[in-house]
Structure formats: C-alpha cells, structure tokens
C-alpha cells in the first residue's frame, strides 16, 4: 500500500509538501494526474503514481508540460477531477493552453500545481508563477506547510468545480521538499464516469465569443474573490492595532512567525498570512490595513503581494485609508532575489523596530568563521562515480581538441548541465531552458554566410530530446542548419529521480510501450545518426571527430544507462583497484590524471604512498579510469 493512501483519518504522518499535495488530491477524489518531471514538483506525480493501483487513478508522465495540462484538461472537461504538476518553467511551456482553457472552462475540478524555485536551487531561473494566475485570471492558493498543502489542494478541486475554472496551487522548493506532520482526512473513493457533451463546443472561441467568455471569466473571478474574503487559509495573528503588519504567504509565513517570536515583538507586530493570493480578498485587506501603523511585505521572488496590495491601497484612500508606510522589496528591507529565511526577516524587523538580535556570543561566531575558513575546502558538484556523462564529456573534450576549430557547444537542462563545470571539463558554453541547446544551435549553425566558421555542437539528454528538441531538429533539417547534436542517452530522466520517457519502453505505471528510439526518429526524417557507448572511449572519440567534419544536421547518440537506476544498482559491480606497483605516482607524466583531471569522487590519492587509490565504497566499477590510465595501473576485476 502507498504511504499517501493510508486509510486512517486522524493519523499523523510525516509528509513532504509534495506528498501533502498528492494526499489532498486523493482526499478530493482525483482520477487523472499528469506531469513532466521537474524540480521541485516531480514527487506530486510520483506519490500519486504509487497510489494509482489502489485508487484506480490514471497517472501519466507526459512528453512535456503542454501535453500534460492538455491531458488533465480533457479529463476535467468530461467531469472527472484532474491534476497536473510541473516546475516553474513548465508553466511557460503549457502557457498557450493555460491562456485558452481559462476561457473554455472545466466541468470537473482542474488543479495546476506549480513548483517555484526561489534561489534557483535546481532551475535556471527564479520565475514566479504567481504572475501566471494574474495573467490567466485564475484563482491562486499558496500553502505554507505540508498540512496546508493537503488542505488547500483538496479545496482547490472543490473551488475549481464550483467556478468551472482551473485553479492554481503554488508551492516552492522549500515547501515541496520539506517534511511536516500532516493529519490525514477521509479518502474519497467514488469514481465518476466521464461524459463529454458537445455542442456546446469546449473552446475559448474567437472574436465576440472570446470576449463573451472573457467576460464570464471575470465574473468567475469576482465569485472567487468573494469566497476568499472568509477563507480559513487567510489568518491574522497579533494585536488589534499593530505598529507594523507583516503581509506574507507561503513558507515566508513560518519565517515571519519565528522572527517575531525570537525578537519578542508579539505585542506590537501582527502577521496577516494570506493563503488565497489571487484574486486578493480586498475587504479583509482593507480591514487589516486600516488598523496597521505600517506594512512589511514578506514574500519570495517577485513583489506580487507588494505591488497588488499597494494598488488596492490607492483605491482604499477614497474610503479613508490614511497614508501608510510600505516596506518590502522596493524599500530594500526584503531581498528582491533569492530565497527568504528567518535571518532575513529578523534583519528587516530589527532594522524597522530598532531591536537587536544575536543568537550566539560574537567571539564564538568569529572563532567558528576562522576555523571554517582555515580547514574547510569548497565542495563543488560533480558527476556521480560511474556516471556515463563523465565519459561522454571526456570524449567530447578530446574530439573537439583534436578537431581544433574551437567548436561552439550549446548545453541543455539535466544532470549534464554540469557540462559547464569542471566535472564536465567545462565543455558546454551555454545553458538556458529545455530544448534551447539545439534551438540556439540552429541559429549558430546558419551564420556561415557571415563568416562564422566554427563547428556547432549541441547537447541534450534523452528525456530532454523527447520533451523539446524534436521541433528544433525538424527545423535544422528543414533549413539545413550545420549542427551536430549529441544525445547523452542514459535511458532515463536522471536528474529528477529516474522517471521513464518515450524511449524507455514502459509508461509511468510500468505498462510496456514500444520504445521510440532517438535514432529511429532521426532516420525517419532523414537526419544522419550514429550510436556509440561513451565508455568505449576511443571508438566514440573517433566517431565524434568524423561527424564533426559533416554538413547539415547530424546526431550522435552516446548511450549508456545511469548507474543509479534500480536495475543498474542491482547488478554485480566489478571491483576496481590500483596496482600500486605499476602506478608511478607523481613521477608519471600523467600528473595524477585519474584523480586530478577525471574528477571521479572514487579516484582518490594515497598521500602516504604518493600513489593513486580507489575509494571502494564510492566506486561503481565503470572502469573509465582504467581505460585512461597511461601506466595501465588500474585493474578491473569482473564480477567483483
């Protein structure tokens, strides 16, 4: 039985924010769930996938977020409750459909869960998807804790159904990936039968019809605003007439509450925590602004509350709201970029209230700093031991060096984004969003007529290839762009936790599905394609070198499975060790190639003996170092 499917109302479980969202969906009777893996939202779909058999759910990993929202939207159009979950940039991908399904509406509850990433822990942008709720005119809920994530998701389905409108639930990394105690509610097991009645057509219309639907959308949002006025997700704590009112949402509420407690300001500072942040509950805001001496906005990424509440305050002036001091991102009290935490709120509050705070003796803090800077080395991210990307980037580095024409290498989104870093020998030179590697390569590859004669190489993983690279590959073929696209095929969606994709041969729920191979797709459109194993270093390097000389679009698939997938982990690992008799140590011309250049965490140095050594706890037995050691000192024993 799945963890989130436990049928014990009242039981307390330690759940992540994402699991809370998934549990809320089960309590609401969700029947269809879709998504594309992306941090921090992937586990919403994974948790529902685990529960899919017991609850008779249809759960799919879609090829991208656009299709995912369309799949959920269709199910909801037939009256089922449906959810789709995606990371911040995924909302960009599905935004075309979002900007029309808001007008066409829904019959069953339709919930879009978005995972934003303040500080860009695992994303390439700090996009604030709350702006999409405003842009698309759809209701927006922002949970603060895993418990609230569950409650809000459940309510989002009811609200969506009542309004006939998609509803957004916005999480952030800190909530999605944190755990908290969640008290379970009753499960909803009733299954609805899908019915699709057209006419009237399910459409956002055109011309006057679109304007009519737009007007109806505004009416729905007025109804939502009325409901939000009394929502229990908006809470005030503090004195009746606070000198300072903290206006906050999401996990920022928990930082605010702790900062007020640590400074002992409970008698003078109040906190209005908003859970329903679009449309804003105007009367509730009027009431609290009227009693406040000043306002500090505590929110992450964009000044969303800050700007929208200030606009309301201008309207409230005619109702007698006096001039108020507003503090937040614009005033510089709250940082305009990055993630918030209790320290940052403490800093803002102690500045505004003139109180000081010091958590430990200053001499301890400075001694700590001294010891850390004296002893602690940096620790950059590295490919895992046994990662095929290390071999692939070594192959690319070598082939490009031997080619000698200073290729432009465009990168893409996945573990192999680290191709920009020393662990990938800094082979990649660009990084944007899913598919932008080959898309920009199409552009670089057409500049020859202006005298740009460098070869163009783009990189993507297999999952990214299916998600967003195919239209660009068609473009390259159609417009004869000169580019070599290298697919680092580790046969899974590695970075987000090994979800299957169209090339895997199985669906999300494990049903067999004929694999769509990258090379078949390429051949189908007449693009030259070759396949190599990156651990066959010499062969792969030669192939890449030859292909670099070609014209038009070409594709090289470097295929080797990720060693962290369950199937690979179960295989017996060869034992790798260094024959220290043969290793010449620092006398060797290789300059400690295995540990210094290759950068595999398992290739360590035996300082007392001044020879290479293998950390057998970390080593996965891939044998790459053995192939590259010039002294032949590294031994691979099969079947270890």
């Amino acid at each position: 039985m799945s963890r989130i499917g436990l049928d014990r109302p009242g039981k307390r479980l330690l759940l992540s924010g994402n699991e809370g969202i998934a549990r809320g969906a089960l309590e609401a009777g969700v029947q269809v769930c879709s998504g594309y893996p992306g941090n921090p939202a992937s586990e919403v779909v994974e948790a529902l996938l685990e529960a899919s058999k017991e609850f008779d759910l249809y759960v799919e990993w879609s090829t991208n977020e656009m299709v995912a929202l369309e799949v959920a939207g269709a199910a909801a159009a037939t009256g089922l409750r449906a959810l789709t979950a995606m990371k911040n940039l995924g909302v960009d991908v599905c935004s075309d459909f979002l900007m029309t399904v808001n007008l066409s509406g829904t019959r069953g509850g339709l919930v879009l869960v978005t995972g934003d990433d303040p500080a860009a822990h695992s994303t390439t942008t700090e996009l604030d998807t709350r702006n999409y709720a405003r842009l698309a005119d759809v209701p927006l809920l922002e949970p603060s804790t895993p418990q609230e994530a569950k409650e809000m998701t459940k309510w989002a389905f009811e609200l969506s159904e009542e309004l006939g409108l998609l509803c957004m639930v916005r999480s952030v990394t800190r909530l999605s990936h944190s755990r908290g105690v969640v008290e379970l509610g009753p499960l909803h097991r009733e299954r609805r039968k899908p019915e699709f009645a057209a006419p009237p057509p399910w459409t956002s219309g055109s011309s006057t019809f679109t304007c009519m639907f737009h007007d109806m959308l505004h009416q729905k949002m007025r109804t939502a605003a009325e409901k939000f006025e009394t929502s229990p997700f908006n809470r005030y704590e503090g004195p009746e007439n606070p000198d300072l009112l903290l206006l906050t949402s999401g996990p920022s509420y928990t930082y605010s509450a702790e900062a007020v407690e640590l400074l002992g300001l409970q008698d003078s500072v109040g906190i209005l925590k908003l859970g329903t942040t679009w449309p804003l509950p105007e009367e509730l805001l009027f009431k609290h602004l009227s009693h406040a001496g000043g306002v500090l906005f505590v929110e992450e990424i964009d000044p969303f509350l800050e700007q929208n509440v200030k606009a309301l305050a201008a309207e409230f002036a005619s109702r007698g709201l006096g001039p108020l001091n507003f503090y937040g991102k614009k005033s510089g009290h709250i940082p305009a970029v990055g993630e918030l935490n209790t320290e940052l709120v403490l800093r803002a509050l102690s500045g505004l209230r003139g109180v000081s705070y010091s958590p430990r003796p200053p001499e301890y803090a400075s001694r700590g700093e001294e010891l850390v800077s004296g002893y602690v080395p940096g620790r950059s991210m590295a490919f895992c031991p046994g990662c095929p990307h290390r071999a692939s980037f070594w192959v690319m580095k070598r082939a490009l060096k031997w080619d000698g024409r200073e290729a432009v290498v465009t990168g893409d989104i996945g573990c192999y984004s680290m191709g920009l870093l020393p662990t990938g020998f800094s082979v990649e030179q660009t990084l944007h969003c899913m598919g932008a590697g080959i898309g920009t390569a199409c552009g670089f590859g057409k500049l020859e007529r202006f005298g740009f004669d460098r070869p163009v190489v783009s990189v993507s993983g297999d999952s990214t290839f299916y998600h967003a690279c195919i239209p660009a590959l068609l473009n390259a073929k159609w417009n004869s762009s000169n580019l070599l696209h290298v697919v680092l095929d580790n046969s899974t969606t590695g970075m987000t936790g090994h979800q299957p994709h169209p090339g895997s041969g199985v669906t999300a729920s494990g049903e067999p599905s004929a694999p769509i191979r990258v090379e078949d797709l390429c051949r189908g459109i007449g693009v030259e394609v070759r396949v190599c194993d990156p651990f066959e270093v010499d062969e792969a390097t030669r192939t890449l070198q030859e292909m670099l000389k070609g014209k038009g679009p070409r594709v090289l698939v470097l295929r080797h499975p990720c060693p962290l997938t369950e199937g690979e982990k179960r295989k017996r690992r060869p034992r790798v060790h260094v024959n220290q008799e043969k290793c010449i140590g620092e006398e060797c011309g290789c300059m400690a190639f295995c540990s210094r250049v290759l950068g595999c965490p398992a290739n360590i140095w035996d300082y007392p003996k001044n020879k290479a050594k293998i950390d057998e706890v970390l080593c996965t037995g891939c044998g790459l170092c053995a192939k590259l050691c010039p002294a032949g000192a590294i031994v691979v024993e099969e079947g270890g």
Partner: protein
Amino acid sequence: MKDPLNVLVVGVGGQGNLLASLLIGSAATEEGFQVSVGETYGATQRGGSVMSHLRLSRRRAYSPLMPEGRGDVLLGFEPVETLRALGTYGNPGIRVMVNPRPVYPLEVLSGQTKYPEVEKVLEAIRELSKEVVVVEATELAKEAGDARMQNVVMVGCLAASGWLPLRPESFRKVVVELFGENSPNLRALELGMAGGRR
C-alpha cells in the same frame, strides 16, 4: 526540553541524508511532536554539501530551516562538512556526533586545495562544541553488510545517546515499518545503538 529542539544532519550528496532525517523525523512524529524537516538542497544532484534541518516542538510547526547559530544537536557524516555546519549553526551548547571518514571534494582531487588532517578537524569541532562523539560508522556499516549504511548506523548512535527526547524503540519501529523485520538497515541501526552506548 528546549523548544524548538534543532537537529542538523550534514554530509555529502549520496551519503543518505534524506533517509537519516526521515528516520529521526518519523520517530519524533511517532512520539507526538510537531516536526519540520528541511533540506538545504533539492537533493537533485550529487557530490555537493547536503544539510537537513529537523525541528521538534510541542507547540507548533516551525519553519523547515533553523536560524543561524541555533543548532542543538549535529549528526555529521563527514568531518569537514560537520565543521562547515558548526561555523553557521553552532553555539557553545551544541552536541556533535561525527563519522570521521573523509569524502574528498573535487577541489581536493584536482589538487587545487588539500584536505586537512582529520585529527585537526576533529579538534576544531571539539573546540566549537559542548560534547563530541566520534563514531567509526562506515566500519560498523561494513559489519552490517554495506558500507553505505553508515547513515543508519549514525542514526542508531544518536537514538541511543540520550541527546534527543525520543525512545530508541520509536526508531526501531520506524525502521521496521520502512524496511521490514529482517532488513540489513535494522542490523545497522542496532549496531549503531550499541556503538552509541559504548
């Protein structure tokens, strides 16, 4: 008990921070605490520093990140990572349990910088802490069948240390619920508990 009680679990990506914090957090949930567990890192890529924050309270759900300088207990899977965390979250009252086995960063492997002598790092940790217990957890984990279970061994040590307001029995229950009666993880936990009492 100090409320909230702030517990840190630190290590390197791939060392099993997530499981360790899940075990401690679940044991605390079992005993009726409000628990928040935060990771300083999306845990989506490996090899970097990883830190889990656990906050136990009888009053309310605290934020998933503890404020700087307010750690009460630190469970460290790697010596320099333990010292790094102390620099930010330590205070004169903190108690530390540390696995002294280094995991070398890329910066050391590439020769840009040297890994300090472990004994010196342990000295620095002692200077910044009220109490330090050094646990050869990787060796104990090998006894349990797999060196990678050092995380569960360390949790076992902590469970038996008396530093947390939690009964060792709650940890056993959580491990059995997750992995079953006969799992190597339960053996690792028991070995850790025995080590923690030594």
